[in-house]
């Protein structure tokens, strides 16, 4: 067939550039937000400033690309609204993930003070049993924070005795123990608003908890949800740049498909015309 074809190395080059540039210069393409993400956003928006919330980092580096941007966006939102945050982890590696988020936040919010605006109480083994005990008596589970400072000496924890003193619970979860445990205890037993973020793969099994009983108040699922959250906050970041790169790459592919079809159609026409 007399059909013009482009050297595919041009496609390779454009894909490379099309993915690299949005990572360096964030475009922030508009994103249609979904109900589940809006619910999470509203939950944070409707939390009165000065309240205390708990965010649990229940994942390890393998799920970092998806869950870390969520952790980043959520904490930033809380800090913007002067909400105090307790960081914890049901996964040992989660502590490091929380610290990575805090490193970024310390630069963005230099005025936030450890112990007054946020605290990291570290990793606790035991899964559901620990969560249950935490709900009943917070201090029994966490006599001190991750640096060994006794809870009684941490100003922001003075009024925190159990889950009743927390505005909401949030789990960034890559499996078990994780979001299911927080739903079963945090919401089902103690009736606290509970929400979370999960990887794209595990989303289908968690989504049923977003129901009329509001076992979960919304859910962030995968990188796209993280990008939607950044969009709602009007603060494009890691997830947005990733989604931008995706969109541009997809656009490049589609443009090439169109070029190929136009070429084919022309060649066909020329062939017919020649006859």
């Amino acid at each position, binding site marked *: 067939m007399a059909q013009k074809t482009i050297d595919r190395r041009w496609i390779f080059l454009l894909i490379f550039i099309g993915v690299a540039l949005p990572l360096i210069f964030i475009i922030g393409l508009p994103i249609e937000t979904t109900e589940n993400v809006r619910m999470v956003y509203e939950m944070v928006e409707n939390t009165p400033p000065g309240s205390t919330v708990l965010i649990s980092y229940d994942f390890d580096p393998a799920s970092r690309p998806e869950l870390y941007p969520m952790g980043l966006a959520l904490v930033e939102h809380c800090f913007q609204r002067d909400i105090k945050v307790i960081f914890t982890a049901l996964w040992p590696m989660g502590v490091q993930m929380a610290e990575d988020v805090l490193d970024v936040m310390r630069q963005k919010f230099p005025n936030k003070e450890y112990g007054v605006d946020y605290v990291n109480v570290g990793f606790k083994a035991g899964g*559901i049993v620990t969560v249950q005990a935490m709900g009943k008596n917070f201090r029994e589970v966490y006599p001190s924070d991750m640096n060994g400072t006794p809870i009684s000496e941490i100003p922001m924890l003075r009024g925190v005795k159990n889950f009743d003193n927390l505005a909401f619970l949030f789990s960034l979860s890559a499996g078990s123990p994780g979001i299911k445990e927080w739903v079963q*205890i945090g919401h089902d037993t103690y009736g606290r608003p509970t929400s979370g973020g999960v990887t794209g793969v595990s989303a289908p099994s968690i989504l049923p908890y977003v129901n009329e009983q509001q076992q979960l108040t919304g859910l962030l699922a995968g990188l796209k949800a993280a990008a939607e959250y950044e969009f709602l906050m009007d603060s494009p970041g890691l997830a947005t740049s990733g989604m931008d790169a995706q969109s541009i790459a997809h656009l490049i592919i589609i443009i090439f498909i169109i070029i190929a079809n136009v070429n084919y159609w022309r060649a066909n026409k020329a062939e017919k015309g020649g006859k």
Partner: protein
Amino acid sequence: MRKFLIFLFLFSAVLWAQNLDFTAEDNPNDDGSAILLKWNAAEIGAATLRITKLEENGDTTLVYLSSDVIGQYILGDGIQPKVPANFRLQALDVTGNILAEKEVTAVAKAQWFNTNKISLLIMAIILTAAIVYYIFSARSGKELYIRKIAGLESIDESVGRATEMGRPILFIPGTLDLDDMQTISGLSILSKLAQRAAEYEARLIVPVCRSMVLSTAKEVVKEAYLRAGRPDAYDPDAVFYLTDDQFGFVAGVDGIIVREKPAANFFLGAFYAESLILAETGFASGSIQTAGTAMPSQLPFFVVACDYTLIGEELFAASAYLSKEPHQLGSLKGQDLGKAIFLVVLTLGIFLEIIGVHFLKDFLTIH
């Protein structure tokens, strides 16, 4: 007065205990290593239910904590067949006070047949019978029809092209081990292809990534050359091992494709993400490409990037089509009967669901 209060307390405790329903029994369909615990504390209004196991030496171990007032739990730890085990259920209120408690005993037993798998057994028997029946009827000389498989036209074309251009044919029997049925199917197609290649004096390259596949593929190719009457043309280094690593293997094969520039590539067997890397590199070197796999996730890439694709079951049918061996044709016919049964049961099941009868679906779901 005090006595009366104590009496009242005890009496009410007894009343509550009666409302607390707690049973322990052998968990069915297992080897006797689990106990099924069920409770119903709906009338008590407990916040938490605590189940403990009472050991012989007087110790108690926590089995389960639940916030569901009605529920069940299968305990599979520390249970032995024919040994009685004692359990205690305590219903607790929000502050942790015991509202009621109850003790039960159960003995676990091992079963000889798992009744939950009856639908699986029935299907297994029907399929086995159909396949075996058709294999024997094919062996006894009955002609079995098999429809044309489009992806197979490429074999003659490929061998011809390779001979004409003086370039080799590349064959990859997938990236899984010999125990995968797709690998075995790939190898039996290799047997036919190698024979054709031997007849036309086309060179064959077979890189493999599993050592068990290596030795079998070597024998397959050697015998094919023998059958073609060209044992002298057999090159023992034509089949070789690269590495067990998925992408390490791909890196190596990509190198082979760009350097040897095969006239035709065959990717027949089990493939994962490497499918598209291989097919695109092969396309760029100008080879005719035939692929076949039963991996649903990789078929889109082969369909898009290769000239001919054997889709799913066609990979298995291909070796029957090529060899025309009665046992392969018979088996294929048996599998077709399996599909026919599938379609009948599906239609019947959907009809029953529409008129509101859920018996069939429920029966099939239990296994």
